[in-house]
């Protein structure tokens, strides 16, 4: 019996995974250096316009946040924005994915078409929405007036600004969740569903006890990425309202952007960003833990 001998150059089983993941890591590791530099900045009194006054003030940038109502407003609005957009987009994305679940060329076509908002750069999308919600030229304002919303002020009124921006966010990003969940739904094994259908199990039960649990890893992935983006939202909000009216929409990135590019207050901007980073780190940690646990469990059942 001929048997191939291990010969020549072979990669040890133990080294292989490192070898596979290292290039990706190395490429990204470069970013650690600027990141750490920014951490240093965040501990400095550092305004570009006052270079002579640059010095370490250690935690002062952070400590001042605690007494700064603007900061708490920023924190609150950022979390609120992320919560609302991700929540709604998830529900909507799941709903649409389920509407399109059945494989048909029409459904496939629709699902690709629905990706178009995602393909529109958010900054430009916001510009277009701003036009469409203009009280004079805006087609949406016009349509709103036809159904009796004469004075609906969209992004310009503090009471509806959040709603409007959320609407644009939903328009742009729901397709992201939809496409991931659609792929997830369509890759679920068919057996449990056929069995449930044969047994006459109620649809709601099938949804909550079979579909949802099996879809959870996909939901977590989609939600995680959406959450990371949403809590860092800038393009849409800045293009639509620049953080206004008043301080209605001064989310983290808008504040940090204004601090950096307009006030050139690098220290404060960096401190804001580090806090944002810490929040996203914390949130994604929860997600990843759950994701891994679910994966593990799923594999245990297999």
């Amino acid at each position, binding site marked *: *019996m*001929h*048997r*191939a*001998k*291990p010969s020549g150059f072979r990669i040890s*089983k133990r080294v292989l995974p490192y070898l596979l993941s290292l290039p990706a890591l190395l490429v990204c590791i470069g970013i650690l250096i600027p990141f750490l530099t920014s951490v240093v900045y965040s501990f400095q009194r550092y305004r570009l316009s006052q270079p002579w006054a640059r010095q370490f003030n250690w935690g002062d940038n952070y400590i001042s946040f605690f007494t700064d109502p603007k900061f708490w407003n920023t924190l609150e609005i950022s979390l609120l924005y992320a919560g609302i957009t991700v929540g709604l987009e998830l529900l909507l994305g799941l709903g649409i994915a389920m509407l399109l679940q059945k494989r048909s060329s029409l459904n496939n076509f629709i699902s690709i078409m629905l990706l178009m908002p995602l393909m529109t750069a958010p900054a430009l999308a916001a510009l277009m929405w701003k036009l469409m919600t203009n009280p004079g030229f805006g087609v949406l304002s016009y349509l709103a007036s036809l159904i009796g919303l004469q004075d609906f002020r969209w992004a310009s009124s503090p009471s509806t600004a959040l709603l409007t921006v959320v609407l644009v966010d939903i328009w742009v990003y729901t397709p992201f969740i939809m496409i991931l969940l659609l792929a997830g739904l369509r890759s679920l094994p068919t057996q449990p569903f056929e069995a449930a259908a044969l047994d006459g199990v109620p649809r709601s039960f099938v949804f909550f006890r079979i579909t949802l649990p099996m879809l959870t890893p996909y939901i977590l992935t989609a939600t995680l990425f959406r959450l990371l983006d949403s809590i860092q939202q800038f393009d849409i909000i800045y293009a639509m309202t620049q953080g206004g009216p008043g301080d209605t929409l001064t989310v983290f990135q808008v504040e940090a952007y204004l601090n950096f590019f307009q006030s050139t207050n690098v220290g404060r901007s960096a401190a804001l960003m580090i806090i944002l980073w810490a929040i996203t780190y914390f949130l994604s940690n929860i997600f990843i833990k759950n994701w891994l646990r679910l994966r593990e469990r799923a594999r245990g059942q297999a």
Partner: protein
Amino acid sequence: MASVELKNIVKRYKSQTVLDDLSLTVADGETLVLFGPSGAGKTVLLRLVAGVIDPDEGRILIGGEDMTDVDAEFRGVGMAFQNFALFPHMSAFENIATPLEAKRSSHGAIKGGVDSVAKLLKIGHVLSHKPRALSNGQKQRTALARALVGSPPVLLLDDPLRNVDAKLRFEMRLELPRLLADRGATVIYVTQDYKEAMALGDRIAVMSQGVIRQLGTPEQIYREPANIEIARLFGDPTINLLDVKPQRDARGIYVGLSNVQVHLAGAPEAAIGRDCVIGLRPETLHFVAESEPGAIPVTVEAETPLNEKIVTLVRTVRGREILVSRPSGTPGQSGGKAHLAVNAKSALLFDHASGERIGSKNIVSLRNGEAA
């Protein structure tokens, strides 16, 4: 040339020890069946031999060569998976051809090899189908064909009949021994079905909780099970197990069954006065006349014909249930009072506390278990 030796294998997953200091030798050309409940570590053991997972401790030798650190593709084994593990994006032909492709065989050789093994397994007509278009039986045969086609010196079959229907399983159980014998390969065969184990194995290794509990020929395992657990696993209907406390009188060692003293010739001295469990295989019990010495009075509760045999449920005077089986067509008792004779030689005595068979010569030492 292709014996398989496992030396002191330890495999852990997280804190759980799946294989605990396991040693085992499978001789060249031998078919060894790994038998045991799920979670016993059979599949893990198979994968260790295949080389797709690594042991935490211990060595694996194939054909006398240390293969512990050798990658799967160089070990010269063929394997069929319980879930078939067919490549869903390839046709049955392409699936079967993969081992030949790995050897860089010529197109003709591949075609010839696949066709002959497909013919042998009667799947020649579905070779162009993708796995999803195959029935379970066809998938199983395709998987088997893939394992066989390269004529590997070592064949690892992981419960290949588990996911096929009863009829096919029955057929294959008859076909497989010949197929394997023809190949001359060393086979390690995993199953949870004792009949399969008995039918296929030159030897059977009974595993539970990561340890080989007993290793022996099918005959040995059946006649001299190492403990209650193994005795219960083999045989259908299951062995009758009754609590007894052996005593000695002038005639020898006896146990009390249904208020009758039944003497067990050749029973080990060590059993005397201990809390024991007596194991009586249903087929070793016979209905006899009341006058027979040692006949146990019972009440017949129910009788069930089971293919080639008839199983009778009887109840002792003390209310304990016993199963009796006899070949179909032989006279029996279908109701009312009856008497049973016990074949003293085949009666098994187990220690009540440990479950070990008393006087077992054949127990594999749990730690350094090279079988005699």
